[in-house]
């Protein structure tokens, strides 16, 4: 007897008691849908977090120096030396000096534009590219030149797109625009496009601060970010002998920690949802046992007509598996439906840009698990059916 015959028989038996089959499948449907939505939600959250972190630069370490008293501090040269000492982990470094100075473009004054003092490597660290003009160069830093590169918003709004070569006033000092950056955030006000970058040496002088309190360092490899972080920490500890004097934050490490936490939560939730799959499987087993006793006479007849034990067994296992798989397919459909609803709720009502997307893998796995449950929980009833004595089965009323 061929598999096709068994499948046909299984479908016709399931179809002949639609209501019962559907109720039996319900456990599987709910289980699969729940697991899918939860795993999808987990994926969505992970993606959301990764995207957020990537926009901040996942390969960066942020060092912030509080110093210790007024005497002990660290100079920019010392920081450069730390990077130079660890070439296997660390790559580029730039101090970041935030300035709270008003910016005057002719008669207009901007309050939203951020002004940051950086090194010549900063644009590379942030992966910004220059569309017109040039970026900051070492000579600018070295000579504390009053030059700057500007974001696209500043260029469009205050210089009508022709910023290079123009001048403006920053806290009373005249600066010359040498380059314009590529648009990053739709050229909106207060976005990363509404920014001005000047040499950190110039910034330091203008704000009368002797030392830089904040640095951005890039790591060679995201996978060894933690080693880079340790190297910076060790070097800073040698200088300050006090762990409270500085903080080194690794974006990769933070993302990793958060991803791990989300995964733990999601795994626990999925495991709870998976319990309903087991309950569904037991439901299938239960109904198959009922079905075996209802069809005892049929089994007797089939045996008398020459059905071998393994055919009877495979027929019942296949029926259980088909029931479970149909439940799985319906569950996947319901899971997709609920995922879209969850996405809409997250986007519109919570205004969080999370896409609840079950991965193809999880769908395949859900389908496989549902088939497996059918076979697993269908086996016992099928075995019982196969071992019925044909004489007793034929006499069964």
């Amino acid at each position, binding site marked *: 007897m061929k598999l096709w015959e068994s499948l046909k028989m299984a479908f016709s038996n399931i179809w002949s008691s639609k209501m019962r089959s559907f109720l039996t499948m319900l456990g599987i449907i709910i289980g699969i849908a729940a697991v899918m939505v939860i795993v999808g939600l987990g994926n969505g959250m992970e993606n959301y977090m990764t995207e957020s972190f990537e926009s901040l630069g996942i390969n960066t370490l942020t060092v912030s120096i509080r110093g210790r008293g007024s005497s002990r501090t660290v100079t920019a040269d010392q920081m450069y030396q730390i990077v130079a000492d660890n070439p296997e982990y660390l790559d580029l470094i730039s101090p970041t000096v935030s300035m709270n100075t008003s910016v005057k473009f002719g008669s207009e004054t901007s309050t939203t534009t951020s002004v940051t003092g950086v090194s010549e490597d900063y644009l590379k660290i942030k992966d910004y590219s220059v569309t017109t003009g040039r970026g900051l160069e070492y000579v600018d830093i070295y000579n504390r030149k009053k030059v700057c590169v500007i974001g696209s918003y500043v260029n469009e709004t205050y210089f009508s797109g022709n910023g290079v070569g123009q001048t403006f006033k920053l806290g009373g000092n005249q600066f010359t625009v040498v380059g314009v950056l590529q648009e990053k955030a739709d050229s909106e006000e207060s976005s990363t496009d509404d920014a001005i970058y000047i040499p950190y040496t110039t910034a330091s002088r203008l704000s009368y601060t002797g030392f830089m309190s904040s640095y951005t360092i890039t790591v060679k490899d995201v996978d060894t970010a933690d080693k880079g972080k340790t190297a910076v920490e060790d070097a800073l500890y040698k200088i300050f002998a006090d762990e409270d004097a500085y903080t080194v934050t690794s974006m990769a490490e933070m993302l990793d920690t958060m991803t791990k936490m989300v995964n733990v939560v999601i795994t626990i939730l999925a495991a709870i949802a998976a319990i309903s799959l087991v309950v569904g499987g037991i439901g299938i087993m239960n109904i198959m046992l009922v079905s075996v006793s209802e069809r005892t006479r049929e089994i007797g007849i*089939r045996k*008398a007509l020459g059905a*071998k*034990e393994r055919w009877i067994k495979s027929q019942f296992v296949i029926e259980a598996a088909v029931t479970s798989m149909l439940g799985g397919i319906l569950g996947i459909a319901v899971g997709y439906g609920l995922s879209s609803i969850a996405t809409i709720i997250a986007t519109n009502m919570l205004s969080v840009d999370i896409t609840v997307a079950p991965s193809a893998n999880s769908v395949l796995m859900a389908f496989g698990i549902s088939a497996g449950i059918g076979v697993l929980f269908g086996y016992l009833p099928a075995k019982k059916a196969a071992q019925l004595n*044909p004489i007793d089965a*034929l006499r069964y009323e």
Partner: protein
Amino acid sequence: MASLIEFREVSKIYHMGDSVVIAANKISMRIERGEFVAIVGQSGSGKSTCMNIIGCLDVPTEGQYLLDGQDVGGMNKNKLAEIRNRMLGFIFQQYNLLPKLNLLENVEVPLMYAGLGAHERKERAAEALARVGLSDKLKNRPNQLSGGQQQRVSIARALVGNPSVILADEPTGALDSHTGREVLGILQDLNRQGNTVVLITHDNSIAATAHRIIRLEDGCVVYDGPSTDPRAFVHAGIPVAQVPGEGGAAT
């Protein structure tokens, strides 16, 4: 050439709790190809046990049962299923059709287990149903038919696989006397066409249709001979007609 059916001192012993029931006690008999034999006995006589053994649904506790020269006793369940499929055609008192299948599908079942392709199965099942006069109802369900028609379907199912033996267990038991006679007529026709028919019944008037009678009492053969002999219908030395409560429980 070996007999089609041969019992060599076949015994069947059941253990029910502490008591031992000897359902068949050293029965020996032979049935040849082309015969029409009725195994007759009252309930408890061992005729059901005989039918189960002949039908390979059960194996003897002692002795040998040879079907077409093969010893059935040593066969495993799979082999027995194969023998039932290839060599035996069952006709039951309660028809035992599968209610969810239509007539054609019902008759196809033995062929399906024999591994035949769908096309050939349909052809042969339709042919078998035509032989019992039901070609116009192939797509009907069993419950749309009368008892006599259902029994004809079960005859079609019994003969569709060209079995060596057609085994009919009280085939008229659930039918009125008129349709009962029709069904017996079909069995006689099948026998005339060369099929071996074994009829199991408690009813003498039905047994008389067969050419040969094997009468069982308390698990033993008490008569084995032509149905024309009046002794065939004698129960424990008394003519059956005079036995009170005929067909009732035997001692």
